[in-house]
């Protein structure tokens, strides 16, 4: 009797847990679903109320994005700028973090704090000086300007996060490598770096996402040649009307690379994001 009772209670507990999980998933997934379906709807049904659930999907919004707004160019711009700036921030940031974590440097804490202070300035404050500087240097509306800006913006984050990941690796592992015949660089490359992969993946995804979605600097520091995706996505909204279909399509196009990156890094990400919690 009581065993049966227990089984029912356990079963209903599990059902409740599933229901809650489903609810949470729906809460986060619904806007994405809405964006994706809207991007396939025609302008006439997109704003219909009550919503139209069954419709003939069309790719016309995507075609318009390519033909009218030239989104392919922006996609390439974004990929180059964000790709390069992420690599730059990751490489220099990780090396800096390694030095701060491992070497006996004077005023280490102050240097680390200095690096972080770049991020303390609200971007809006620095955008006008950057604009003037960019004009003066002749790099306005070029890849280089945004690459530099994004790399710098990502750097403090990389330094601070990677420093913790590096400190988590026991020093004796590297020392063993030094004794086993490695130089410092070899020890880092052969022993430390493979162990850092989860941390690198997690950090890279976050730095990439920040730069990929960045709007303020992109809109102020480019005019044509180096325009990026967020700027063009915003162009679908203008003073007279909002092109909901195109905005949704732009949203889908912008989300895709992030989704792909996360899927590629998934193997490392789960470990990276939980490394602090379950060390072992």
């Amino acid at each position: 009797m009581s065993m049966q009772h227990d089984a029912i209670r356990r079963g209903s507990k599990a059902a409740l847990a599933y229901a809650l999980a489903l609810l949470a998933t729906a809460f986060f997934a619904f806007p994405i679903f809405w964006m994706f379906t809207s991007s396939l709807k025609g302008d006439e049904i997109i704003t219909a109320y009550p919503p139209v659930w069954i419709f003939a999907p069309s790719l016309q919004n995507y075609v318009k994005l390519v033909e009218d707004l030239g989104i392919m160019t922006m996609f390439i711009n974004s990929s180059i700028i964000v790709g390069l700036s992420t690599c730059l921030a990751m490489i220099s940031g990780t090396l800096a973090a390694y030095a701060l974590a491992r070497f006996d440097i004077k005023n280490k804490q102050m240097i680390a704090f200095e690096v972080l202070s770049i991020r303390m300035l609200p971007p809006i404050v620095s955008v006008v000086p950057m604009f003037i500087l960019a004009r003066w240097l002749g790099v306005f509306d070029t890849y280089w300007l945004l690459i530099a800006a994004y790399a710098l913006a990502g750097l403090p984050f990389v330094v601070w996060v990677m420093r913790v990941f590096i400190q988590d690796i026991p020093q004796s592992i590297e020392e063993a490598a030094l004794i086993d015949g490695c130089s410092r660089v070899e020890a880092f490359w052969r022993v430390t770096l493979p162990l850092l992969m989860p941390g690198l993946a997690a950090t890279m995804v976050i730095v990439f996402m920040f730069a990929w979605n960045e709007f303020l600097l992109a809109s102020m520091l480019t005019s044509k040649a180096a325009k990026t995706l967020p700027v063009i996505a915003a162009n679908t909204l203008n003073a007279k009307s909002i092109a909901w279909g195109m905005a949704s399509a732009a949203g889908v196009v912008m989300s895709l690379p992030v989704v792909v990156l996360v899927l590629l890094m998934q193997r490392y990400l789960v470990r990276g994001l939980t490394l602090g919690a379950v060390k072992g």
Partner: protein
Amino acid sequence: MGIQIKDVRKRFGALTVVNGVSVDIAEGEFFVLLGESGCGKTTTLRMVAGLELPTSGSIHINGKDVTYAEPRHRDIAMAFQDYGLYPNMTVYENIAFPLKIRKVSKADQRRKVEETAGKLGIFNYLGRKPFQLSGGQRQRVSLARALVRNPKVFLMDEPLSNLDAKLRAVMRTEIKKLVSELGITTIYVTHDQIEAMSMADRIAVMRHGDMVQVGSPLEIYDRPLTHFVADFMGSPPMNLFPASMTTAGRPTGEVREFVDAIPDHERDLISSRLDASGQFTLGIRPEHLKLVQLGSPGSARAVVDFVEPLGQTTNVYLTAGEKRLIAVTDRCVSHVGDVVGVYAPPEFLRVVAN
């Protein structure tokens, strides 16, 4: 040949960790650095390894000045307290790593790794990752990785301190056997005096960055130079009595009978071991104290406080005057509260500096 450490000092900012250490370690010798944590023993070892650079002084390994050389140019191997295994590599890859770095051919790598793993009894674990091994197995892997390339010098930093007592005793004999068979010059750091006693050819007892005494295990046990060494070596520790000599040739101390019994050759040592205020310490090992009939010639009156029968021997805790003593005797029939005589055979009394 071997290792020569000459007046090596290490300062971290205002803190002096190693304070001018000099020692000459012979080829093939098993040399133990013994001391409490923070005494500078590990820092000394790390300077020999090249993981730390000395502030001053010099280090020679096999006749070559390596004071500032990188670790990889010193032809040394090292075992770490937390093993220092590469967690992402298998046991095989871990052991093969130093050979791979030295560009040894694949076939030779395999042969040497399998040979070394066989010697250390880990042949069956070559395919596992370090986290799948027990502590004792991990330490064997780290020893195998160190020994696989036949190093001239082997450095060990408390390699057994993370193991349980029983395994420690087993590994102790194994390590000692292994390195003496291979004839590798070894420096071994430990805070465990039993490890030091049982493994070392010579021990250096360190304290506050100084080598207080260097000698064979029995020399250090039998003739400790200072109060610290006397107290540190041996369990239960040496009985130590504060004594002084303000008038030359007339030492006085807490237990009169013992002071009076100091033999001539020890008496001659007193003046050289006195501190600035004319104090020294008189010591006798617990196993040398004899319980005798009250009033026997040369014995002091003592009361039995506590009796600890250990089977083979018995620890008897006594109070003589104000002073507490420990005597290790055969199985005995002392009872708490007994009043007995304690006799210190003169040949076992030691004059020790404070």
